[in-house]
């Protein structure tokens, strides 16, 4: 049974069909990249999986169960977390609290009546927050307000927040977008490390083909809402349809 499975997913925004009959699946321990030109529907597909958007038609199953009846926070509880395309952090709070919030949300459920117990007695929350910040290289900055981090570090924190949920499936929407070459290299290294250390299953949206080719077990190519190809990096490199789609939209 695949970890994640979408079946004939259609999402229309008025006249625009953002995803058109998308059926894909991801196995446990598989690293999958989602590529395609601008407007292909990559972010839409991710947003459908996180339940930020309701599909017009189709089905999404995680661990064999439909998640269409769930709220976004329930999906996280099931084990899917997401890092956003732009850093979506808690700006006024110190970095450590950003990580603690994420650890708390995942470890202690969507809602608990623990309003009279002290957070500093939740050792496992602190442990997860600490481990995550060490993994993303922000432990030394833990007392800095998130808003004061340089751009690249904000994006790493963004990834950290998604990782602190210790997800079974991590969705990453362009984790290197807008980064300098050095920041990009650091982030790729970070993803490689986490992948090795945590046995992570992920779905990565990424424009940089070199990164995609190196990091993925399998690549799914989306164009104008439809899956036009999928396969190993080698298969995708040789596919003519992919070349065509990219020649059409390779203006970046």
């Amino acid at each position, binding site marked *: 049974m695949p970890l994640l499975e979408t079946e004939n997913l259609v999402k229309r925004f008025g006249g625009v069909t953002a995803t058109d009959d998308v059926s894909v699946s991801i196995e446990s321990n598989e690293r999958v990249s989602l590529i395609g030109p601008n407007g292909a529907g990559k972010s839409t597909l991710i947003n459908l999986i*996180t339940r*930020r958007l309701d599909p017009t038609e189709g089905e999404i199953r995680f661990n064999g169960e439909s998640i269409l009846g769930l*709220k*976004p*926070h329930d999906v*996280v*509880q099931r084990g899917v*977390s*997401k890092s*956003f395309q732009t850093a*979506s*952090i*808690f*700006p*006024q*709070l110190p970095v450590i*609290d950003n990580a*603690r*919030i*994420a650890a*708390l*949300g*995942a470890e*202690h*459920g*969507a*809602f*608990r009546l*623990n*309003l*009279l*117990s*002290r*957070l*500093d*007695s*939740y050792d496992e929350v602190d442990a997860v927050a600490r481990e995550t910040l060490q993994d993303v290289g922000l432990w030394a900055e833990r*007392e800095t307000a998130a808003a004061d981090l340089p751009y690249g570090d904000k994006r790493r924190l963004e990834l950290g*927040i998604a990782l*602190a*949920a210790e997800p079974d499936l991590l969705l990453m929407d362009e984790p290197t977008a807008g980064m300098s070459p050095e920041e990009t290299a650091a982030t790729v290294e970070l993803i490689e490390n986490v992948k090795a250390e945590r046995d992570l299953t992920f779905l990565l949206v990424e424009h940089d083909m070199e990164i995609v080719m190196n990091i993925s077990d399998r690549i799914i190519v989306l164009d104008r809402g439809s899956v036009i190809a999928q396969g190993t990096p080698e298969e995708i490199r040789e596919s003519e349809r992919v070349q065509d789609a990219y020649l059409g939209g390779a203006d970046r």
Partner: protein
Amino acid sequence: MSPRVPRDELRVLGLTALAVLAFPYLFAEAPVVSDVLNGYAGLATPILIWGIFVMGYDLLHGYTGLLSFGHAAFWGAGGMTVGALIHHAEFSFPLVAVALAVIVGILLAALIGYLSLRRGGIYFAILTLAFGQMIYYTMLGPAGQLTNGEDGLILDASSLFGVIPLDAGLPVLTPLGIIPSWLYAVTGVLTLVSVAVAYRILQSPYGLVFKAIRENEQRASFVGLNVWRYKLAAFVASGAFAGLAGGLHALQAGNASASPFYWIVSGDVVIMSILGGVGTLFGGFIGAGIYLYMDNVASSIGLIGDRWHLLLGVLFVVIVWLFPDGVWGGLRRLRSMVGSDDTTHTQTTDDGGND
């Protein structure tokens, strides 16, 4: 491993107890200070009562980032609970009545919060205002039998355990000064309890989740938190404090009427909250103090008189201008400028040791 009552809580409670004990003396009796303040001991009680109200409101507005314009409803309902029990039911246990006022505050806040939190931002604020005003007009008209409208119910039997009148003097001399009345003593104890509870809520997971919602609501739900329920929890908690304060206020005023339900009260709380400092918790007491001082003391100084509202407005602008996080925030910044070594010390203590 860790002590029963953590050190920071002991410190907060100790300082609060000290402040409650010293406050009436400073305000009304101390040689020089009281002349400058020109205060009277009777104002000490309402300042604590409003302070509780504002502190609870801060959990919602300052920490969770939800601006409500309807908190008069819970304050009024707390007062009316106490009023109806004592006046209509001749109930002679004011403290039990106040406990029931808290429960009424909680239930009403759960209902209004449930309905208002369906919308965000300004729509939420307007919904709370609308519900608040609906309740006000209900109290004025349809429920006039119960409330006696604007005139309200007289509560003359407000006595402790049915024996000691609450306003009876209790000129107990503590090392710090006098306790002016039984009511002040009761209010002081409940202030201490309120501070303990509110402070503990902020140290609990809720405190962090509230701030997460304020900072980035969408992200909070995408780390797996049920944002809606936590918002409702913040709303209900603030309603509980408002009910408590409203109940005490009725005892103190000796009257419970429809007037405390009026929307102006909701605005007063916002003003006090901003004066004292949004998201500072203790600032609520300072905000309440400044407001009530202007209203009761400054307004009786000939030159100011009826113009106290104008003066308050000017003061409001100056404070917001100088200290965006209110008087408490200003004091805190001053302190960290003077004694910066103290704050760095507390920050580094928790990662040494225990592993």
